[in-house]
């Protein structure tokens, strides 16, 4: 059957022109082009399509991919930067193309390697025969920081140490793929690989479809099903255990959790007991039987592993010992990552598996053996010297490794002494020159060296390889393996399909995920932070409104304005937003303190920082825009006033801050899924707003308030417009109080806040206990009723204080009901229905 071919594929001239300036580097294998300058066949489909687009359209498409990544919130955290700076994801848009035959061979080799590493782990934590027989030096295991002694003799629940494993490979000058290293602790990058794939397939759907690329979704679906198969109860949730938002790959943790339908948890969210591991949620303790671990094992349990860890779960090791929880990968699996292992795996393969390694690893020598050491030292210039276990040796900065010939005289002296004293800490590796793959630079393709990370998942007793990968490209053309540690750029890897591409997951949503609706599974820690984000943001808003009301009246020299300004200033001083000292009472000084003084808990620098830090630990729960608003607010307040500290400069700052808060409110209202998390954010805001409004009423709505106080009150409660429309007269006491305190139709009134609070509480778990309203709802209902029946003309300051006290009690009971990490198991009557 004649297959209609795309016209561009036949226009050979344009392909030739497109790659005309591209030449492999001398003596180095290039993925795209033979040494003679002809394009390798498996790249032709892709390149012909690029050629047909032309440089301008290519740039446009690539920019669209970047925009997609930016909009999805994909970024890279710079670890060393204390400010937690994030930079755009460095995607090189040209994928690496791998042809099917070569892929099959690679696949078989990596699966074999996974089986070998599993056998080594089982032996190291079990019988120890490989050591006893002298096939693996005992020092190589004992000296490995990832050899976790509390796990010795413990068979991993679920039967396997390794469940998700990654291998870094590179193509050597001989044209073969070589294993450069193993990642068994908690391999990173797979989430980025999925995001890169999504970005490219959306930016160039036509090219992606025509190139016939193997989809990666089926691999993750199989892995997800495998993880879920270890749930012993239907209501158990599989969790992804992350060290938290400060980790450089936190974005990936959040993404993978969403993608695989896992609950993203930190150590603090979990509790290990005799009867299993549980998640602390707003509806009580919920069981988890399976953890996908992204926290380094040593930090996983402060009781039995690193006692200094604040990231782990006390008692997790015991839970593993008791067979209560499957962890992927098992605690201690990082043992096989050590570089020194590479020296022994080639010889272990025939002994353990009865087969030679199908894909060789880079030649490696452990210098703890004297004969090996003497041989290596005789040709030191040609090898790379590196730490045996990945940890750095004091006094010798080898980094990821140093080529013998490039050692400075000083380093050479230190190294020789170190090899004399403790050769067991070092390995030597063959210096490998890696192949190159094209990147798009200055409107044309250019070769760059790269390494490729491939992912394997254990499915049942077998392994599957993700058909794709995470390519790390060195920006500089020095093509040695060792210069790749920093991975300047990343790219997607496209494995070409031999037959038809699996249509299980086609565009526009190639990486389809089953629908998940999570109710009642909100972690208490997340709810707590959301609640406080709400309270801090609202408190910042009230403080800003007060400041604006004060500054706005400064220019007014009338007799009416002066006492009002004084009383607003006094209120701000009482709120710990400014020093109480009378010397600081002049309104301008008070405003300055409110806006700039980081030492006062009620001043904006502290409030906005607190809001940001509460939001930062749960930022995956906000849309990128909502998070950005909170971040911007804190940044704005932290910046010095640009135009000096004049009153007008301060008013500008207040207005700018209020605008950001308004946009945050809109984004939270419109863009957050209205699940439990959103309700806690709302509860925080509503309680805080009700409290502040009560205080405003007491300060500016009392019978003895200075003239003009009611106008201030209407302004603070943002209700002037409503008032004028309703009453067409100057502010009078009873109508104003009614509007800002009692009118349930005014969205700023206290009654309205309570109405919303009631609604939110009614939608949360534990709303009823034994058929009766929960204590927290009883407080809310009583308060709401009280406001509904109050009379604006007669309500006293004392009554308003009582309402405030009840609001604070409400906040406390919400805390003790939902947010405190209670150790009690869920009682039957407690569960959500």
């Amino acid at each position: 059957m004649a297959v209609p071919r795309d016209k561009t594929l036949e226009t050979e001239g344009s392909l030739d022109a497109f790659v005309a300036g591209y030449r492999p580097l001398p003596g180095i294998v290039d993925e795209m082009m033979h040494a003679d300058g002809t394009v390798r066949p498996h790249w032709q489909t892709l390149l012909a399509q690029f050629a047909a687009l032309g440089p301008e359209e290519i740039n446009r498409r690539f920019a669209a991919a970047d925009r997609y990544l930016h909009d999805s919130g994909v970024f890279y955290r710079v670890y060393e930067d204390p400010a937690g700076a994030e930079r755009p994801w460095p995607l090189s848009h040209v994928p690496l193309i791998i042809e099917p035959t070569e892929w099959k061979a690679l696949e078989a080799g990596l699966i074999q390697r996974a089986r070998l590493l599993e056998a080594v782990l089982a032996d190291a934590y079990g019988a120890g025969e490989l050591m006893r027989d002298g096939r693996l030096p005992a020092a190589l295991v004992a000296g490995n920081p990832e050899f976790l002694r509390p796990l010795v003799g413990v068979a991993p629940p679920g039967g396997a140490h390794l469940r998700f494993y990654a291998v870094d490979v590179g193509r050597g000058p001989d044209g073969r793929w070589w294993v450069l290293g193993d990642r068994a602790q908690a391999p990173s990058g797979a989430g980025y690989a999925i995001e890169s794939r999504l970005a490219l397939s959306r930016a160039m759907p036509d090219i992606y479809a025509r190139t016939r690329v193997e989809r990666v979704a089926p691999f993750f679906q199989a892995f997800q099903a495998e993880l879920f198969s270890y749930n012993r109860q239907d209501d158990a949730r599989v969790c992804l255990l992350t060290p938290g938002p400060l980790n450089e790959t936190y974005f990936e943790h959040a993404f993978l959790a969403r993608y695989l339908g896992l609950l993203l948890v930190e150590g603090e969210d979990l509790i290990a007991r005799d009867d299993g591991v549980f998640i602390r949620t707003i509806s009580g303790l919920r069981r988890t039987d399976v953890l996908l671990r992204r926290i380094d094992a040593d930090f996983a349990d402060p009781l039995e592993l690193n006692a200094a860890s604040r990231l782990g779960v006390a008692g997790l090791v015991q839970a593993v010992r008791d067979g209560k929880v499957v962890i992927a990968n098992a605690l201690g699996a990082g043992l096989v990552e050590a570089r020194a292992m590479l020296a022994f795996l080639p010889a272990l393969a025939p002994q353990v598996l009865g087969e030679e390694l199908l894909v060789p690893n880079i030649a490696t020598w452990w210098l703890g053996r004297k004969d090996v050491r003497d041989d290596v030292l005789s040709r030191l210039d040609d090898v790379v010297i590196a730490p045996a276990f990945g940890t750095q040796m004091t006094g010798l900065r080898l980094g990821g490794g140093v080529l013998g010939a490039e050692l400075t005289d000083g380093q050479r002296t230190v190294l020789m002494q170190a090899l004399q004293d403790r050769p067991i800490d070092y390995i030597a590796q063959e210096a490998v020159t890696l192949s190159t793959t094209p990147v798009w630079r200055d409107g044309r393709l250019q070769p760059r060296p790269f390494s490729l990370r491939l992912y394997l998942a254990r499915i049942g007793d077998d392994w599957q390889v993700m058909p794709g990968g995470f390519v790390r490209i060195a920006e500089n053309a020095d093509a040695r393996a060792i210069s790749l540690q920093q991975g300047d750029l990343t790219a997607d890897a496209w494995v070409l399909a031999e037959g038809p591409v699996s249509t299980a997951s086609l565009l526009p949503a190639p990486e389809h995920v089953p629908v998940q609706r999570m109710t009642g599974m909100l972690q208490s820690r997340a709810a707590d932070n959301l609640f406080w984000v709400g309270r801090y943001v609202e408190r910042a808003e009230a403080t800003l409104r007060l400041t604006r009301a004060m500054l706005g009246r400064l220019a007014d020299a009338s007799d009416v304005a002066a006492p009002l300004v004084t009383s607003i200033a006094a209120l701000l001083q009482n709120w710990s937003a400014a020093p109480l000292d009378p010397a600081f009472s002049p309104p301008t000084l008070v405003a300055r303190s409110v806006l700039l003084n980081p030492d006062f808990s009620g001043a904006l620098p502290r409030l906005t920082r607190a809001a940001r830090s509460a939001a930062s630990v749960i930022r995956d729960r906000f849309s990128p825009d909502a998070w950005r608003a909170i971040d911007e607010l804190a940044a704005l307040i932290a910046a010095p006033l640009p135009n000096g500290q004049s009153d007008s400069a301060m008013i500008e700052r207040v207005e700018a801050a209020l605008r950001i808060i308004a946009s945050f409110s809109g984004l939270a209202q419109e863009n957050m899924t209205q699940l439990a998390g959103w309700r806690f954010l709302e509860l925080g805001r509503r309680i805080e707003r009700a409290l502040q409004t009560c205080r405003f009423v007491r300060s500016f709505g009392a019978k003895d308030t200075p003239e003009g106080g009611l106008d201030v009150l209407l302004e603070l409660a943002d209700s002037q417009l409503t008032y004028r429309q309703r009453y067409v007269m100057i502010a009078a006491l009873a109508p104003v109080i009614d509007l800002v305190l009692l009118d349930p139709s005014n969205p700023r009134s206290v009654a309205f806040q309570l109405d919303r609070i009631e609604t939110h509480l009614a939608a949360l778990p534990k709303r009823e206990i034994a058929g009766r309203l929960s204590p927290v709802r009883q407080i809310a209902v009583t308060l709401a009723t009280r406001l509904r029946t109050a009379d604006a003309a007669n309500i006293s300051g004392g009554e308003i204080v009582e309402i405030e006290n009840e609001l604070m009690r409400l906040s406390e009971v919400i805390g003790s009901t939902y947010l405190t990490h209670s150790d009690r198991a869920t009682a039957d009557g407690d569960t959500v229905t």
Partner: protein
Amino acid sequence: MIYDIRQVTTCAYASPVAHAHHVLRLTPVNRPGQRVHLSALRIEPSPVKAREGADFFGNRLTSVTINEPHSTLSVKVSARIAVEPVARRDPAAAPAWETVRDDVFAATDIGPQSPVHFLFASRMVSLDPEIRDYARQSFTPGRPIVEAALELNHRIKTDMTYEIGATTVTTTAPMSFALRRGVCQDFAHIMISGLRGLGLPAAYVSGYLRTTRSAEQAQLQGADAMHAWVMVWCGEAIGWIGFDPTNDMVASDDHVVLAVGRDYSDVAPMDGVIVAAGGQRITVSVSVTPVQSTAALLPENAL
């Protein structure tokens, strides 16, 4: 020599602790040259759950969970232990230290008793080049290992000032070595760092020291703390020998071993995770009283 040992550890918390998990390493076990006649542990408030176990190195662990709110936690240990004196050897007859080192590099035993576990940097003992070079002065080429270790033991005692308060339990070897000050824990960590820096296996020992030598002298009740010293692997024929750099002596029947690990963090008497705000203050009192083998348990030792 037989000892009655009594240790009381009290943690006073600034605010009540609602929930606590602790791992206690306070129960002695039988070891070569050491027999435990009796040992008991009393914890207040009493745990809802207590679990006995052993760590990788064979030290006894008690892991406890306390659920009732408490402002003070007290752990009382009572034990009667018999310790054999260590036979004197000719230090010059020990193998050269390099031989011991090369043998351990080639070790094939990964079991808990293997010296190979005590060869590498550990949480609190990094391999500091300065400490290594300091140790090297005693480890001249071909010198018998026991002789060299004795000299290092002596030099640490001479060059360091024993000073309570100069360091804390979290002070690392390079820090206290730079100060040339510290307590037994620091002295031990420094010696371990120096030995491991040269490729020699060295272990950290926590335990008790008899403080008076003659029966006429009054026993210092409750005035003592726990002690720490070092064990050095001296080759297959000799095995482990205990060196006490704080007192410039070889450990014999004045020393009672409680736990052995790679450094303090492996044998810390109490590790814990508590749910509470505010700080804590820990006081420890220890008494080590020589007794006759036929002596009944002293009343205050009875639980």
